[in-house]
Every structure is written in structure tokens, then in C-alpha cells.
């Protein structure tokens, strides 16, 4: 599935790694390779094994089986202080008894560099994260966003081969988080270091990553670019976790060219783009993103590339740039639809109204069940 990657392009290689915590399997036979200079995210809900994977890379924990290579070097038995990686901790873990300058200089000092070598590198890194004026401050005197920059500078100053980030934006408020998403990405492109970022926030992962891996219950479910994962999720879990998806269970009636016809109980026959391996009789889950749905008061002409279902508007929520609707389907399922408000007030619906929901066959994703 993945294109061939030559060994020299690989920054981190995880080979069939398993890690147990007592009776639970935190990481279950995971294999991954992360390319040099890539912004790679490990995305999953809590307990998915993403943080354990990061701790295995940092060297705080050791795989029960399998192998980890960083820059081609096996990491078996290499303690954290001898690994070419640095980590940005979830709550930053800044040393409270040291100033910003001392925090950032710590790694270089431990490497045995002289004060003369350390000073310019600290100054340059602190400048890069725009904290030059705060060198003598203590972490407690900084805002959350500033603390986050110190944590970044403290790791980046060492020029690690790989920077590990554990929920780097989790402690920031919403607006700052969105700013930092872009800033992190820009920073990563500037320094050219491989970033591996753990997050449970799909929006964060989609915005920042070159590629991402979706994990659940310790298993690797899918690896790909944000677009690949968003538009062609490989499983119902991925479809739901990466943005809200509406789903309908059904059975393939027949396949004709690139279109499959799916019988859904209580609704009828719907069309969807076909995926390999489906044949008449296959049980499938048809998923469609809320923003791909269109609502209309008039039934359109039936055409083989569209689907149309009569629904009742259960709830209409105004949320600034868009309307969010809860739709009641004939089979009593509830779907979500997000319609841009740019369409004008005349096209809005209110609760209790009936409407036609439409979507293109090509935009539904079929997942075998």
C-alpha cells in the first residue's frame, strides 16, 4: 500500500512492536516508518497506544517484542539520554527552578558543551520561538503559550534527529491552539527535523501532518496523508474518528462499472462509488461526511450519480459560518448535516420541516463489514 521508501529516507522505523502494560496490550504489533523531515502524527483516542508508542521512541519504555530503529540504528538497550530524540511533554515539564535560558541550555550543558558554544545556540533558538525578551524569566512567570515555546526551544536547541511531541497543544485554549497548529508546521518546515506528534484531536492532526497514523486499542488502523485518510477511511472507526461521519448499513445489490447499488433497509436502493473486493451480497457500511450533504425543499431529477432521501429536520443549530442540522431518516437513524450559511437565509430550514437530503454517489465511502 505504501510506496517504496529507500532506507536513507527513513528517520524512524518501528518493526512489529508490541508492548504490554500488565494484562492490557498497549501497543499491538505496530509497524510504521516515518520519513526524514516529515511531520507525522499518531492519532487516536485515549488508550489507543499513541502515547506508549511515543514513550517507546523516547526510550522511557521498552518493547516486549519487535524493534525500533532511529536513523537506521537499533534502539534496543539505548537509554533516553543516548537517543538522538527530544520530547516536548504534554504539560511541558519545564524545570521550575531554572530560568528560560537555563531550561533551554540544559541539554547542551549535559552534552558537555562549553558556555561559549551554548550561548549563541540558545540565543538563536529562543529567538526562533520569539521569546528573546523572556530569557531571565522563570516558567511560572510565563503564559501557557510561552511555556509551550520554551518547551519547544529546549528540545529543538539540541538539533535532534527526531522531535517527539506529546499532545503539544492540548493545554492551550482554542484560539491559541489554532495559531500554534500553523506555527508548529511552519517551524517544522524551517528546521527540517522529523516531528512525531501524538494527538487525540483529529483537526490538529489533519492541519499539521504530512502523514498520520490512526490507532485504536493498540492497533494501527491506517496510515496516510490527511487527505487520503479523510476521503478514504479504511474502517468505520477511522471514518468516525476523523470527523463525524454519517453511516448506513446495507447489502450490495449489484456492481455496475464504478457504481455499486446498495440496499438499505427502510430507505431503499442507494448508489455509491465501488471499492475493490465488493461483490453482490457483501455487507457494507456506507459513510458520508456531514459537509457533503445538500438539503433541498424540492426533489431533484433522479440521476444515477446522486442519492436522495426524504428526511425530517430534527434540530437546526446556528453556528456562525454554517448551520448544523440533525436529520431524522425514514429508518429512524439520525444524521448530521453541515450547510454553509453563505447560501442565504431563505435556504435555511427549521426543526420539524421535511427536506430532501442529497449527495453524490462518488462522495460516499463503502466499508465492508
Amino acid at each position, binding site marked *: 500500500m505504501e510506496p517504496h521508501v529507500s532506507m536513507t529516507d527513513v528517520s524512524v522505523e518501528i518493526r512489529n512492536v508490541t508492548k504490554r502494560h500488565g494484562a492490557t496490550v498497549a501497543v499491538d504489533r505496530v509497524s510504521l516508518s516515518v520519513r526524514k523531515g516529515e511531520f507525522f502524527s499518531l492519532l487516536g483516542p485515549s488508550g489507543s497506544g499513541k502515547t506508549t508508542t511515543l514513550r517507546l521512541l*523516547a*526510550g*522511557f519504555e521498552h518493547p516486549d517484542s519487535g524493534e525500533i530503529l532511529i536513523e537506521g540504528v537499533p534502539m534496543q538497550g539505548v*537509554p*533516553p*539520554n*543516548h537517543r538522538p*530524540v*527530544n*520530547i516536548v*511533554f*504534554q*504539560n511541558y*515539564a*519545564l*524545570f*521550575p*527552578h531554572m530560568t528560560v535560558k537555563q531550561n533551554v541550555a*540544559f*541539554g547542551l550543558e*549535559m*552534552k558537555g558543551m562549553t558556555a561559549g558554544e551554548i550561548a549563541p545556540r540558545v540565543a538563536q533558538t529562543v529567538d526562533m520561538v520569539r521569546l528573546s525578551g523572556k530569557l531571565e524569566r522563570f516558567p511560572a512567570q510565563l503564559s501557557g503559550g510561552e511555556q509551550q515555546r520554551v518547551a519547544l526551544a*529546549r*528540545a529543538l536547541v*539540541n538539533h535532534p534527529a527526531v522531535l517527539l511531541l506529546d499532545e503539544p497543544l492540548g493545554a492551550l485554549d482554542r484560539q491559541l491552539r489554532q495559531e500554534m497548529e500553523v506555527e508548529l508546521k511552519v517551524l517544522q518546515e524551517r528546521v527540517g527535523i522529523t516531528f512525531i506528534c501524538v494527538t487525540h484531536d483529529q483537526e490538529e492532526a489533519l492541519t499539521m501532518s504530512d502523514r498520520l497514523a490512526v490507532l485504536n486499542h493498540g492497533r494501527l488502523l491506517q496510515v496516510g496523508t490527511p487527505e487520503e485518510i479523510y476521503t478514504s477511511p479504511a474502517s468505520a472507526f477511522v471514518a468516525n474518528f476523523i470527523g463525524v461521519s454519517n453511516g448506513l448499513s446495507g447489502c450490495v445489490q449489484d456492481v455496475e462499472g464504478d457504481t455499486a447499488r446498495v440496499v438499505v433497509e427502510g430507505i431503499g436502493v442507494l448508489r455509491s462509488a465501488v471499492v475493490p473486493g465488493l461483490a453482490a451480497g457483501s455487507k457494507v457500511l456506507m459513510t458520508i461526511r456531514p459537509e457533503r450533504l445538500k438539503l433541498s425543499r424540492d426533489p431533484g431529477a433522479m440521476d444515477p450519480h446522486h442519492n436522495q432521501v426524504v428526511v425530517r429536520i430534527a434540530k437546526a443549530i446556528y453556528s456562525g459560518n454554517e448551520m448544523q442540522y440533525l436529520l431524522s431518516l425514514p429508518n429512524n437513524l439520525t444524521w448530521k448535516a453541515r450547510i454553509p450559511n453563505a447560501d442565504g437565509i431563505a435556504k435555511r430550514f427549521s426543526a420539524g420541516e421535511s427536506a430532501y437530503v442529497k449527495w453524490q454517489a462518488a462522495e460516499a465511502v463503502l466499508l465492508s463489514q
Partner: protein
Amino acid sequence: MSMDYRRGVARRRLPWLIVPPAIALLLFFVVPLGLVLAVSFASKGTYGGVQWIVTVMNYTAILDPLYLGIFWRSLWIALLTTAACLMLGFPLAYLIARSPKRWQAALLLLIIIPFWTNFLVRTYAWMFILRAEGLLNTALMTMGIINEPLNLLFTDTAVLIGLVYGYLPFMVLPLYAALERLDPALIEAAWDLYANPRQVFSRVILPLAKPGVVAGCLLVFIPSLGAYVTPDLLGGAKSMMIGNLIQHQYLVVRDWPFGSALSFVLMAGVLLMVFYYLRTGAAKSFG
């Protein structure tokens, strides 16, 4: 508005609340201390008792090498006790602070349980352990490690053992309080930033445990310096400490003025040393 009002009430009530403890302190601390200070400048009566003839002789008498030697030995034993408590107490406190939360209460209880038995009784127990045909010597001889009993009881070593035993909890508890607050992520962060285990300890754990180290050292050093029961029971005639000397002056020699002067010099000495320690030693040694 209402906040200001409430604060105003609190401010007006506060003086009344401190009246009872202020009276208690005045009656049972300041007044007796004043009496001791007054007596220290008085003269000894012929048959004991106090004659109110003002003199500084009680203070100049302390400069006698015999008494200075006792001061010096007390200081040395108190310092050794503090150092030993710190060496033993730090790993113990660290272990408790890093053990699973549900065990911590039980482990702390184990530290405190000895307090449920009278200190005097526990010190007597050490006599049975340390004497020539005591538990320790018997055990060592049975195992063939030594051929004849070690001379432990009534030595400085016995006093040191007794003091370390008695004051170890006072070191462990404040250290535990400081180490328990230490975020384990800080240790991992230092480790990740190329610090080896020794550097993690000296650059992160120790500086952050500093308040606990300072408190623990003071809580052990001050009572050790003035210890009385332990050197009285476990130490020999040659292991006299200031506490024993003061007791001796009051109850055996019946020289209250000299006993009072000794008490004041001890108190002033402790005060000076603690002040010096807090201002320089504690502040600088961990940066």
C-alpha cells in the same frame, strides 16, 4: 463590595483570635525564658539555690576547655546525626513518594508507628540490642562474623545510633512532602535532555527537594544538639552532651545560674547556626 466587607470583618476579628495563643506564649514561653535569662546572670547560693548578685562569671566559666569540649562534641554528634539521617532518609522518602499512591499511606504509617511507643522505652530497647551480650553482638557472634563482642553501649557510636533512630522520621516526613510534589515528567525531561542518572539527581531532584532537605535538616539538627535522654542512657561518662551537662548543673551540682547560662549559650548558638544555614548554606549549596 461584599468581598471587601468580608475582608474587613476578618481583619477586625483577627486581633481577638490571636489573644489566647499570645497569652499562652507570654506565660509559658517568654516569662520562663526571662527567668532563665535573669538567673544566668545571678550567683550560686552556698547550698544551691540562687543569690541575686549580678555577675557574668557563669558565661566566662563556659570558656573552660572542659565545657567547650562538650559543646564541640555535641555539635559534631548533631552534625553526624543530621548527615546520617539525610543519607538514610532521602532514598527512603524517595521510595515512598514514588511508590503507588495506595501504598504511600501505609508506608508513611510504618515511619510513624514507633512514635506510638514512649521514646524512653525505645531507647531502653536499644540498650538491650547494643550491650555486650545483647541482640546485635549475639547475632554477629553466632554468625561467626566477630569472635568477641563489640564494645558499643556507652560510646559515641551508641549515642549516634540512638539519635539517628529517634530523629529519622523528622527527616523522612518533610523530604517525602517535597518529593511527592515532584512531577515525574521533570525527571524524564532531564533524562531525555542527555542527563545521566547522577545529573538527574543533582540538577533536578535535589534542587526541587531543597525545601524538604532544609526543613528535615533543621528538624533533626536542633533536637540532636540539645539531646538529653539518648546520650544519658546510651552514652558513657565520656559521651556527655550539652543536654546532659545542663541537667547535671540543675539537678546534681545544683548550680542553677551556670545551667541557665549554658542553656542560653546553646539557644543563641542554635539560633545563629540556623540563621547562617538559611541565609547562605541552604541557599547556595543547591543554587
